[in-house]
């Protein structure tokens, strides 16, 4: 009995390892970011772009309205691409757009907004990119749809026409 148990357990272990490696081979080795949603808005002190005033993020998202937090920068090419979508979204009364100006200079950011229009109700100035880390962001552009202080949807990369439709459905 003992002699039979040993080869059986060795074969079992090898089969288990084979299944694990086989499953691992089928998984993509290109990292896809985890799109975690339904978590609270981070409570951190941030600097406002216009007034340089330091406020807590919870003071910004204090109504029951929908908010779209958009991380952008004047040097980011995809941000220019998604800007018309933001200009379209601001026409909705149910939605407020809050921008996080990521690793930019105020001078360049102002030029960008003068040229393409300003869809933001408020802008947070994130000179070091640390506020974006608090939001769990990877870079620019990135957007977060918020309702009742909770992130309900996260968009990595520029907003597309499909995401525009989706956001409009959410805020209807």
């Amino acid at each position, binding site marked *: 009995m003992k002699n039979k148990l*040993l080869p059986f*357990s*060795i074969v079992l*272990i090898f089969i288990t390892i084979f299944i694990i490696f086989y499953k691992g081979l089928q998984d993509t080795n290109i*990292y896809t*970011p*985890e799109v*975690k949603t339904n978590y609270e808005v981070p409570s951190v002190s941030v600097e406002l772009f216009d007034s340089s005033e330091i406020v807590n993020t919870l003071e910004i998202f204090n109504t029951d309205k929908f908010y779209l937090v958009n991380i952008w920068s004047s040097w980011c090419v995809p941000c220019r691409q998604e800007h018309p979508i933001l200009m379209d979204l601001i026409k909705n009364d149910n939605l407020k757009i809050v921008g996080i100006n990521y*690793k930019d200079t105020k001078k360049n950011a102002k030029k960008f907004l003068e040229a393409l229009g300003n869809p933001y109700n408020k802008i947070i100035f994130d000179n*070091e*990119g*640390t506020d*974006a*880390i*608090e939001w*769990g962001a*990877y*870079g620019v552009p990135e957007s977060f749809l918020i309702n009742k202080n909770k992130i309900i949807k996260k968009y990595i990369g520029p907003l597309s026409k499909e995401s525009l439709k989706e956001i409009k459905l959410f805020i209807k």
Partner: protein
Amino acid sequence: MKILKLFLIIFFIFPVYSLKANNEILKNKITKNLRCLICQGQSVYDSDSEFANSLKIVVDSKIDEGLSEKQIYSYFHSKYGEWILYDPLFNKNTYFLWLLPLLIFFLGGTIIFKKINKKT
């Protein structure tokens, strides 16, 4: 009196430098265990990307706030999930990963032990 002054200066300045050096060692240790999520196979310590540089600043400020190494890892884990850590945490998703080498080691040991016992 001069000697006393010199002693006091060294006494107060030395711990500050020593603390800074310790923080730098801790920062390097932590950033070496954080994966740069937008780079291919690089740690935050090795990378010079915008994302990695921001992460280094956050690690610095968390150390200054007095957070422990474990608390800093769990902060990043809460923001970016398990993937950001090179050293996976010991939880229900990783029990198998951590315990399999031990299991194989003990099984191998038992086989060798039995073989030796048989021969003698």
